[in-house]
Structures are given as structure tokens and as C-alpha cells.
């Protein structure tokens, strides 16, 4: 087994260069190291100027998403040994504006997330003194998978529609809208449909399906969007066919 491995890392220094370049680094090759460990080794011992985000190193904070050999990955869960003998190509998440090196701007996502009202909407709040809203385990299961999103942005980086149309609301945000729609405690579905019923919302999705393939938490945003389309389409049809009272 080779004792070192090479990483080809995208650098972008906006103060000095007009576009990104590639810098190669050679790091020790260790069986239990992930790509993030290699980046930390570079930053600590070789080049303190390399910039990237990371935090929990256990796949739940969602900070460390990057393109590894062309695929969006959480670098804390991408073992070097899976890319041996290298070189390992490490790039910032695609389809996002690059701020610097491996850091991309995700501010747009925060706007999209807020737009879909990802919170419980109710006509009337039950007072806390009356206890919890009852919700059976099956009712929890109805939305649970879509609540597992860690906002790591891998799905946006996998989605060509995001790349083509930056205004597309995108997989994670629509899945989170659907997470609340499916929550038995929520009454905000009709409000969200109005927001998501345009080509920037659910209808922009053409079901490429890569979002679900790269999701590290098996959220399956593609399914969320298709289910959302089906429900919306059926509801629309009903509203045309049925008289108001019986809807």
C-alpha cells in the first residue's frame, strides 16, 4: 500500500486571480483517513491558506460538502482508500458561486428555504397546557424521512436544473416543504402550494433523480417533489371538476 496520496485541490483566490486554479498536495495515506482529514493535514502542516468549511466530522452538520472526483460528497465520510491510488480531485460544490478555494456561497438556499415556510402553520395554536398534539408512529413515518435533511447542499450540486436555473427552489427546500405538508400537525400546505406552483418551484424539476442518489441521509428529495406534484395535480383537477362544497 502506498504511503502517500496526492490531492488535486481547487484554489480560488479572488484577490489575486481571475479564475480557479488547481494545486496538488501530497499527504500521508492512512486507511482510516477521510478526505477531510487530508485537507486538515494540508492546512495544519503544509499550507495554512487553504480554505474550506468543516465542523462535526460525523456527517450531521452538513458543512463539508465538496466535489470529490466529480461527485458531491461529505468529505468527512469519503475515505481516501476509496480513491486510491489517487490523485483525488477535490473541488468546491458545483453550481454554486465560489467564494474562495473550496467555499461556496449558499446564501441563496437560505432565501429559498425561508420562502417555502418550513415551520408548522396552524389556524389555531393549542395551548401548551393542553399537552402535545397527538401523532401516531405511522403519522410520524409519513414525514420523518423528509425531516432528515441536513442542508448539506449535495443535492443542489447534483441537480442540473439548479445549475441551469439558479432560481429553481431546489431539492432540499422542496423536500422540507413536503416534510411540513405531510406533518399531521401542520395546516399550511395550501399556502406552500401557492409558492411552489411555478416553474421555479416543483414544476421546474424534471426528475433527473441525482439529488436522491447523492443524499447522505436518504432523504429522497426527488420522491418528495414527485409526490408533491402528484398531490398538487390531483388537487387542482378536483378543484376544476368538483363543486366548491364537496372539495
Amino acid at each position: 500500500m502506498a504511503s502517500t496520496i496526492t490531492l488535486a485541490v481547487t484554489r480560488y483566490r479572488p484577490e489575486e486571480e481571475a479564475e480557479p486554479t488547481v494545486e496538488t498536495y501530497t499527504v500521508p495515506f492512512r486507511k482510516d483517513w477521510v478526505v477531510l482529514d487530508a485537507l486538515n493535514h494540508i492546512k495544519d502542516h503544509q499550507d495554512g491558506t487553504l480554505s474550506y468549511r468543516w465542523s462535526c466530522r460525523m456527517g450531521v452538520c452538513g458543512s463539508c460538502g465538496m466535489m470529490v472526483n466529480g461527485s458531491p460528497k461529505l468529505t468527512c465520510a469519503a475515505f481516501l482508500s476509496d480513491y486510491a491510488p489517487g490523485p483525488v480531485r477535490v473541488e468546491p460544490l458545483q453550481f454554486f458561486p465560489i467564494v474562495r478555494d473550496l467555499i461556496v456561497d449558499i446564501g441563496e438556499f437560505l432565501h429559498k428555504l425561508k420562502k417555502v415556510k418550513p415551520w408548522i402553520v396552524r389556524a389555531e395554536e393549542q395551548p401548551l397546557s393542553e399537552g402535545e398534539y397527538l401523532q401516531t408512529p405511522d403519522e410520524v413515518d409519513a414525514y420523518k424521512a423528509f425531516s432528515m435533511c441536513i442542508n448539506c447542499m449535495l443535492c443542489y450540486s447534483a441537480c442540473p436544473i439548479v445549475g441551469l436555473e439558479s432560481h429553481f427552489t431546489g431539492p432540499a427546500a422542496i423536500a422540507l416543504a413536503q416534510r411540513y405538508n405531510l406533518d399531521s400537525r401542520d395546516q399550511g400546505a395550501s399556502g406552500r402550494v401557492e409558492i411552489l406552483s411555478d416553474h421555479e418551484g416543483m414544476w421546474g424539476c424534471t426528475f433527473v433523480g441525482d439529488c436522491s442518489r447523492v443524499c447522505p441521509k436518504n432523504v429522497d428529495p426527488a420522491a418528495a417533489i414527485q409526490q408533491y406534484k402528484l398531490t398538487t395535480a390531483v388537487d387542482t383537477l378536483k378543484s376544476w371538476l368538483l363543486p366548491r362544497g364537496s372539495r
Partner: protein
Amino acid sequence: MNERLTPFLWLLFSAGGTVAALLFPVHVFLVALAFPLGALPAPSYEALHGLVQHPLVRIYIFVLISLPLFHWAHRFRYTLYDGLQLYHLTNLIAVLCYGAALAGTAATAYVLLTLTR
């Protein structure tokens, strides 16, 4: 495209996709391959002509042809739009695609309604 129409067009696309998935393989295999190549005994003109006299068969043929046309229209529209990045032609593409499907549907209806006994 009118946003209010989108859910309806998507339903047509879905229905058409399902019809095509379920029924096209067998129809294509028999009508476009097995019968012309003589691999299987083709039904006679009279037999088929007799079959299409039944109203249910005519409805079946109408569904078989028109819904998949809308399926095509929807998919082709998005493929042109995203694949070739023809954003400035979005309305024209939509009109041409759904227009073609509509025309095909009208033609099918006309043919089926005027089929001689």
C-alpha cells in the same frame, strides 16, 4: 406557460407515460416488428377492421395514441428547454409541443369517428 395549466399538463404527461409504459412495448413489437417481418401470423384486414368497430376499442385506441402524445410533448419541451438552454424560446417551444399533441389528438379523434363500416 400559464401556471394554472401546469398541473393539468403534468397529469396528462403522467397518464401518457403510464399508458406508453404499459402498452407500447407489446403494440410496437407486434405491429411494427413481428407482423411486418412475418415472425408471427398477422391478423387479416377484415379481422382488424371488425375489431375497431367496437366503441370500446375505439376509445382504447384514442387513449393509446393521444395520451402518449402529451407525454412526448411535456418531455420534449423540457428537454429542449434545459438540454439546449433555449430559455428565450420557452413560450414558442411550449406552444409547438403541446400544439402538436393537440393536433395529433384531434386527428386521432377525426379518424376514429369517421372510420367506415
